[in-house]
């Protein structure tokens, strides 16, 4: 995923570029630093400047290890923000409605990272029986680690490297599939959101639920507090606050979903922009396919 609204980028968005075939590309350190400085992101530029490089290219082993540390910290934050329980509370009624039909239900987590939510759902069986849980991410390092963790934990879920919306990657029977994500939408530019929802419409998924930060003063303050208090990595602290600042407002998400996925009833559950319910600082956009 590349650049986003306002021009500011998260450092992690720069560290794992891939080509059209999904192959990883080298990251020239000077280019990465220059793109950050051009956006006025001096602190981010210093962080990337301090990363080890060989022949001007960032050390991929270092970057991979850093990425795992960042995502482990992120998982810890996800635990504290009750991401697993949030997902289960919303998905269980959706899954129960699908259960009246034939065959298993599938839940696909797009951009799953280390697969915290899929693994949590699998470990708790929170969605009931006959639910296949699949995590998909474009980052092979994260998928390998998610797979290793799920095996170590003996969980009945699987992880796939690739594009979640490509044919035969994760969605087989769209009518019995629920697509979810957590903290993914703010990585997409506003102009790409309609395409994101359209891909789910094309697959004919039964429902989607994508959690992200509700952009407001409180969520930005909360992101700053929590990333200062909880995160050890400078990259995590930088990217975490930027995530809140560049998250998409509900109107933008709803407009994009209605444009891209017109066959779905969509909603975003959140309170007022300035006085949001604290619980809604992380809220989903939910789409259910019309009968």
């Amino acid at each position, binding site marked *: 995923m590349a650049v986003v609204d306002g021009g500011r980028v998260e450092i992690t968005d720069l560290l794992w570029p891939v080509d059209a075939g999904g192959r990883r590309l080298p990251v020239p350190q000077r280019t990465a630093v220059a793109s950050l400085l051009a956006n006025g992101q001096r602190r981010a530029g210093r962080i990337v400047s301090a990363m080890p490089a060989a022949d001007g290219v960032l050390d991929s082993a270092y970057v991979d290890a850093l990425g795992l540390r960042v995502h482990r910290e992120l998982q810890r*934050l996800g635990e504290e923000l009750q991401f697993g329980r949030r997902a289960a509370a919303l998905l269980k009624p959706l899954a129960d409605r699908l259960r009246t039909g034939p065959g298993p239900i599938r839940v696909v987590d797009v951009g799953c990272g*280390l697969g915290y939510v899929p693994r949590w759902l699998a470990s708790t069986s929170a969605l009931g029986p006959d639910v296949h849980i699949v995590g998909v991410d474009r980052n092979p390092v994260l998928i390998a680690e998610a797979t290793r963790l799920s095996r170590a934990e003996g969980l009945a879920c699987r992880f796939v490297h690739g594009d979640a919306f490509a044919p035969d990657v994760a969605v087989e029977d769209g009518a019995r599939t629920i697509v979810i994500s957590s903290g993914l939408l703010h990585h997409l530019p506003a102009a790409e959101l309609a395409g994101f929802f359209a891909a789910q419409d094309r697959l004919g998924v039964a429902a989607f639920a994508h959690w992200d930060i509700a952009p407001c003063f409180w969520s930005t303050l909360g992101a700053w*507090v929590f990333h200062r208090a909880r995160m050890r990595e400078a990259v995590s602290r930088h990217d975490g606050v930027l995530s809140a600042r560049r998250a998409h407002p509900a109107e933008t998400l709803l407009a994009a979903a209605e444009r891209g996925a017109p066959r779905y009833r969509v909603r975003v559950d959140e309170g007022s922009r300035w006085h949001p319910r604290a619980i809604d600082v992380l809220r989903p956009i939910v789409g259910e396919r019309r009968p």
Partner: protein
Amino acid sequence: MTTSVVAAALSVLAVLDGTFAGFRSSLGRTGLLDHRRSDVRASVRGGVLVVALLALPVAAASIDAIVRPRRLHLYRSAGDAMLLVYGPYAALVLLALLVYATLGWRQKYLASAVILGPFTLLRPVIAVAGGLVAAFAGEDVLVAIIGCLAVGAVLAVEPIADRVWPADRAVTA
């Protein structure tokens, strides 16, 4: 409160703080869903570490008070002042932890979002404020120095735990 009760209360708070510092240091290290064992191990390490780090200031205060008993009231005043700052902070944190441990996920989230996260960020400020208040209340240079050493010892637990038991080693543990 007697001097021994004040000393005991501060000791309990210090050990609790060290335990929580060790716990925080272990979080977000492995990626595993169930990390209770490593958390408990890290909490115990944090508790032991704070006791070890506090040994010097506690020994210095104890020796001073034993050798010059008339100075005991200075330590008592400093201890009272520290408790005045740390007591309400600790009470709120413990209440939030009780909520986190016993209620539903929405209450857990709120306890974390409203108290536990912000209070972790405020912790160094509170710790230093307690040290400063104690230094003024003690009205003595040696008491102030020992108070500062104690505050420094408590604040050093998490950074030391992060360095001694770093992420990559914790992952394979």
